[in-house]
């Protein structure tokens, strides 16, 4: 598999999950 294929099928989904984890950890408002 070349890099583009690995990106689309594996890295992209992992990155979206990591984005949600990142926002969960770092984007708190008062009261959270």
């Amino acid at each position, binding site marked *: *598999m*070349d890099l*583009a*294929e690995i*990106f*689309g*099928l594996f890295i*992209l*989904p992992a990155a*979206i*999950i990591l*984005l*949600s*984890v990142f*926002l*969960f950890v770092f*984007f*708190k*408002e*008062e*009261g*959270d």
Partner: protein
Amino acid sequence: MDKAAEISIQADPSAILSFVLYLLIIIIIGILSAKFSSSGLSEFFLAGRKLKQFVVALSAVVSGRSAWLLVGVTGMAFTIGAPAVWAVTGYITAEVFMFIFAGKRLRRYTAMMDNLTVPDFFESRFKDKSNVLRILSVSIILIFMISYVASQFEAGGKAFSTSFGVSETSGILVTAAIVLLYTVLGGFLAVSLTDMIQAFFMIFALLILPIVAIVNAGGWGEVLAILHNFNPKFLNPFSFSAGGIIGFLGIGLGSPGNPHILVRYMSISDPRALRKSCVIGTVWNVLMAWGAVFTGLVGRSFYLKPEALPGGDPENLFPFLASAHLHPILLGMITASILAAIMSTADSQLLVASSGVTRDIFQKILARGREISEKRMVSISRLVVFGLVIAALVFGMIAKQYVFWLVLFAWGGLGASFGPTLLLSLFWKRTTKAGVISGFVSGTVVTIIWNQVAVLNNTIYHLVPAFMISLSLTIIVSLSTSAPAQANAELDSIRAKYSR
């Protein structure tokens, strides 16, 4: 070989048993939720804002995913290959931000103002006494939702017909009857809890099928070799035009504007928990979406020519591949998962449309000032759900050939009308009532025109231009009209309370 017979499970008792078991579970949930949901409109339409993070996460995710994910995305990946990932990336990313930012603010605002519906929100936000915002938003909801529900019933009829060999009309009626039963009885609580069960069926189906199929193909390496040999660019997500990729990503612009998803955020007991719902919902969304993409890809490795599928239709891949690779019990669950996707969308849309009629039109306009008990309002809501099911069935019969055409822009129309206006109303104090009205109208009109004009329709998915025009007009008209004087007080108080 008779392909239709091949994907039918009517002859297999174990498959029917697992399917019937699923139906029993969701009907029992409807019955058990009935008492709670009967106590008032807030309970019937928002589960009393008492739902927990896990239920909200899964309900928000599967309410937005109709049969399009299971049969549409699998068929798309089968046809175009890895570029199908862009069709799912947009909405999943949009929903990450909705959970964390817009959903939380919407929940806080609507709870503070005792808003039960999206039209309620717009009226409160702009202190609109003229009912223009309410009537306009309910009209948009009803126009798009009835056609949306009708299309879900049609899809349910097809799934029943394909799986059990009954006529399509019987399948439509059975789908409508089941959704009607648990939605009328259990309201939002039943709809959300059944969404959760349906989410498990969907993720199970979308994970087990590609895994088993890959194993049966001889492993991922074998699938790769076949697909590379078939088309060297088939697995390259960038082998698509930039316009195509942007159009696919643009599907995500629908997420902030579809009221049946928005009310999920409004129903959570503690808005702080939406951060956890975000992670749960995103993991679920990603696994289901890439499961669908992998199903399409591995399916192509088995059937290089689309003619090998029943009717030569790539959208038949999902049940067809399942019939070829799974045990009958699992095949019953696959059928259940298609019905789950259909029902979890139709039930949420029915409730939102019903709330538009009962809460927004009847309680807030026609019966304003009259004393009507909460229990009576719930009874009226149930009657309205019944009426809407009949309306969707009749609409589906009258406009049978247009139903699927209409649903093509229902997601986009709602997204373009409500998405920009809702986001600006939540985050931009300068938004005005006139700006929102222009956003509602332009979002709907551009969606319809873009779909009608072939030259435009062939360039990019209509939601992208419709959203952008609606967004621009809302901003321009807002800046051209007087800033609301008192309308921002509640927004200010939320901002002051929660922003650092």
